[in-house]
């Protein structure tokens, strides 16, 4: 890259002289700005697609033009309508992605500062081959070729991610040289460290440890370690959470939401017990014990009927909880009061004067109030 950049420098040297300093992008500053893009884009040697496409040879490339990356329809259409990446089009897209390409899936707010825009474009240009960069230099607008990097700029390689990593590693006088891609900070996590903390389990079974446990074993454990709060059958003691029952109550005036009546996935039960229970002594159960407790809760919720049932890594994903199908995605925006987005009424919005229909004092449960008998209704979570 530094090679192609040097030839670019030579090629551009003449026009550089004629241009005011502020019109030029500085690729070295651009490398700093590009850190805002690194989470989603790679550029440079061996750059692969990440969340967004790689940005090598971008100049002169038709928008949405890489065959092996899945663009939004919007980006494909923009390309079909003639959008080609060069200084100006990049400038506009990066200043306001969603404004320039309506419907782009690039979830990036845009760069607000002119110099940042110019610098990052200059930086990206150093990763485009000469020809492409030349074509990319605004043939559409018919202007003079845009300025290329300043001749006194230090070698851009020094600020490239890979190089930064190498520098950090080589200059490693510190006990732990950093390996982060952009700043060379952080160190590599060991496999054991990841295993120690990464205990999450997904509905598809990803993350389940080896092991198994029966309803009977779970019953014993539950009575010893859980029943004091959750009740012998998971019915909940006092205000402690109820874990079983409530099937068929979701449309009632007072629904009872439990593992059996409400929870969509069994993986959540296993995951949650393993990470957070018993309350006050978390991370004290073995994986087999968590399987056993999960089996017992399935039994208490009538999801399995067999007292001899054994839950294991192998049969875990076969089990479906009864309420799984009853979850829908957020559709608040379609509610009548939101969908309208109408200017609200200001005058005579009600036919008759407003009358009080309910007072807090009727069921006053405000702390410190005279009749606070602790009989309030409600929950925080």
């Amino acid at each position, binding site marked *: 890259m530094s090679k192609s950049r040097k030839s670019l420098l030579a090629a551009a040297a003449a026009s550089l002289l004629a241009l005011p300093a502020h019109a030029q992008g500085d690729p070295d500053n651009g490398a700093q700005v590009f850190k805002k893009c690194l989470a989603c884009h790679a550029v440079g040697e061996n750059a692969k697609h990440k*969340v967004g496409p790689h940005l090598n040879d971008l100049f002169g490339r038709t928008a949405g033009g890489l065959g092996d990356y899945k663009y939004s329809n919007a980006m494909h259409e923009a390309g079909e309508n003639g959008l080609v990446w060069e200084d100006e089009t990049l400038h506009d897209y990066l200043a306001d992605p969603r404004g320039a390409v309506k419907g782009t899936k690039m979830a990036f707010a845009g760069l607000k500062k002119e110099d940042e825009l110019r610098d990052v474009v200059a930086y990206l240009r150093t990763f485009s081959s000469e020809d492409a960069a030349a074509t990319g230099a605004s043939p559409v607008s018919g202007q003079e070729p845009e300025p290329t990097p300043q001749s006194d700029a230090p070698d851009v390689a020094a600020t490239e991610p890979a190089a930064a990593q190498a520098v950090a590693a080589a200059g490693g006088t510190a006990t732990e040289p950093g390996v982060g891609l952009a700043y060379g900070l952080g160190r590599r996590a060991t496999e054991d460290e990841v295993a120690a903390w990464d205990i999450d389990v997904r509905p598809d079974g990803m993350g389940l440890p080896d092991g198994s446990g029966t309803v009977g074993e779970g019953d014993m454990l539950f009575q010893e370690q859980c029943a004091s709060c959750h009740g012998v059958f998971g019915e909940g003691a006092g205000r402690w959470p109820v874990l079983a029952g409530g099937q068929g109550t979701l449309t009632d005036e007072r629904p009872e939401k439990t593992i059996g009546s*409400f929870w969509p996935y069994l993986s959540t039960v296993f995951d949650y017990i393993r990470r957070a229970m018993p309350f006050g002594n978390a991370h004290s159960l073995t994986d087999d014990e968590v399987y056993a407790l999960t089996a017992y809760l399935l039994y208490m919720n009538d999801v399995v009927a067999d007292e001899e049932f054994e839950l294991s890594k192998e049969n875990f994903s076969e089990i479906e909880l009864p309420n799984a199908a009853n979850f829908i995605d957020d559709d608040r925006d379609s509610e009548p009061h939101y969908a309208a987005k109408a200017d609200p009424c200001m005058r005579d919005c009600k036919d008759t004067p407003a009358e009080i229909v309910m007072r807090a004092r009727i069921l006053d449960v405000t702390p410190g109030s005279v009749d606070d008998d602790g009989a309030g209704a409600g929950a925080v979570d």
Partner: protein
Amino acid sequence: MGKGNGIDRRRLLTAGLAAGGAALAPRAVAGEGDPAILEVQDWTRYLGDGVQARPYGVPSEFEAHVVRRDVEWLTAATESSVNFTPIHELDGIITPNGLCFERHHAGIAEIDPADHRLMINGLVDQPLVFTMEDLKRLPRENRVYFLECAANSGMEWRGSQLNGAQYTHGMVHCVMYTGVPLRTILGEAGIKASGKWVLAEGADASVMTRSIPIEKAVDDCLVAFMMNGEALRPEQGYPLRLVVPGWEGNMWVKWLRRIEVGDLPWHQREETSKYTDLLPNGKARRFTWVMDVKSVITSPSPQMPISHGPGPLVISGLAWSGNGRITRVDVSLDGGRNWRRARIDGPSLPKALHRFYLDIDWDGRDLLLQSRAIDEDGFVQPSKEELRAVRGENSIYHNNGIQTWHVKPDGSSENVEVS
């Protein structure tokens, strides 16, 4: 509160008289007027505490009632509970650190920053571990955001229940965070193309977890270590918390220790059993992340009676929206029949609290006070009836319905609902 001082002064006065007679008695101008002016006050005569008497300053003893409060009957244990910001006593848009409401699932983790680590793993080019020192070497940003618990006002779905803005709307606060964009930290590890979600995880004994779509994670999320210019408070996740602007408070994982990148959401307990919104037909909405446009009048309100009688009255309140800025707030004095535009004062920042005022000449008669906010996306704060018509009474979360205070001629007020 003033009494204690009076006694002190009398004691000192006697002592002075005994020691030196009339010459030492404080000067008092005889005559008509306010003793607060006519008599020389202790604080005008004697020296106060010197510097360093309070190395970390605390509010005046006369503000001792301005504290977070909880509702005991709500939860079984204080370690898994919530308390409320005294929003009725505050002004402006910034919440003082010590008054930001608390919600814990396993108590307050007390962590020495030297022992704290942030791990990035999953679908990344390289799994990484950062120390606090590492994180403080990355470029930081300062941003002001509100944080609202999705269950704020959740106790009011069935009707007015709690008498005070602190209890009905106090699960909200707004501070300036200093931190590193999550995008930057993920960039150090390198997100793989298949990475579509992140899981944020806390280090407390609930090991709190939430799934967040990658678009949000790399858009405006911050990994914060400071609030209002000083280190996070332990109860707000010291030494590190996630900031998820405009989205429900539960996702702002405190004591943040790990970010995992994955291709699917994890469906953790806090996004299945909790923080899903049950509808009357038995279906439940999930992933309802954005906090809707909302407002409340903080004064007058049940805990802030009008003490001065008819005449000039400042009606003051807060408005906010997870979609961005508040563009307008209307106030009604007659239970929503007629509305006037309130004045928004102070900075108007996206996804931050906004302060509004309506300055009126109160005639001393009953008021049915309401406020209604509109955000920059054009969303109008709905009435409670409108919400219940669609969502019923068992949603628990996301109750942003218009609040009514009945202000009575004696200046007291009550939480009510109107026709």
